[in-house]
């Protein structure tokens, strides 16, 4: 038990941090999840993988702030 709102907040923060630190060149490209590798055609239903890649890219862009990659 002892699953409180605060522990949920901590877990969410750690998850967002985990997504934000995935390195573009060293990791995502090697497993084929880079930002320029997944864009499907227009009018095509985006599958789960492209939605996830979109999500990772959005989280990383938002978390980047002013720092240049």
């Amino acid at each position, binding site marked *: *038990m*002892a*699953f*409180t*709102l*605060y*522990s*949920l907040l901590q877990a*969410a923060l750690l998850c967002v941090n985990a997504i934000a630190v995935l390195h573009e060149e060293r990791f995502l490209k090697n497993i084929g999840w880079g930002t320029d590798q997944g864009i499907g055609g227009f009018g095509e*239903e*985006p599958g*789960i993988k492209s*939605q*996830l890649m979109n*999500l990772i890219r959005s989280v990383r862009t938002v978390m980047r702030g002013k720092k240049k990659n």
Partner: protein
Amino acid sequence: MPGPASKRRIPVSQPGMADPHQLFDDTSSAQSRAYGTPQGPSGLGYPTASASPQAAFLSDPVSNMAMAYGSSLAAQGKELVDKNIDRFIPVTKLKYYFAVDTLYVGKKLGLLFFPYLHQDWEVQYQQDMPVAPRFDVNAPDLYIPAMAFITYILVAGLALGTQDRFSPDLLGLQASSALAWLTLEVLAILFSLYLVTVNTDLTTIDLVAFLGYKYVGMIGGVLMGLLFGKIGYYLVLGWCCISIFVFMIRTLRLKILAEAAAEGVPVRGARNQLRMYLTMAVAAAQPLLMYWLTFHLVR
């Protein structure tokens, strides 16, 4: 310092006399001057209040000024809050979910415990807006989930009390834990809806309402467990789990699998299969959570 203090005390004992060494003007006499700042009246209010009875204090024109100013400040603050509250809490949208009456609550509770005979699960629409819960038993509401949540906390306290395990901070812990599970469920479902790219009209508040219906079954189970021991608990909880499972499947099917399942035809195709799995997963999570949140209360 005795000097200023004694000077301040002089107007109290001799109201109306102007002392040349006073720190401030004494207007406790009948002559009235209109002061715009509240500091004047509030500083002068004390000598006059202690010197004269309450009625004279309230009829003093300067303190009238102070009351008028204070009430206009309060009115301005209220206006500001009313204007901006809609930005943080969608009050007008929430009002829809609390538009319930006793008949609706009764029918909905009956539906939660026995959803097997209900035929039509579609929410009626009126001019493109869903009808208020008062007029349609299928519409989601927030009254039952909110009341059930609070009752669950109280029943948990009762159950812990009968086992001599109660302490007040445990109530807060139960509430926090149940809220945390609810938030986690909502986030997980929203995330999976995003992944499967479902275009639904299922809003977040709708989802909170649907996920809050399981507290009703939990209360039933714990109460029966208190009355009849573990056998009663398992029986009633099992019944409520199955009921909530069927209820969620029938309700969510209309929201998530909108196009195909409204006629009741079993659907094929990868996308619809994914949606069906999602509905089943959401419905299956309800009994699991119902058990997880109540088993430690019944011994």
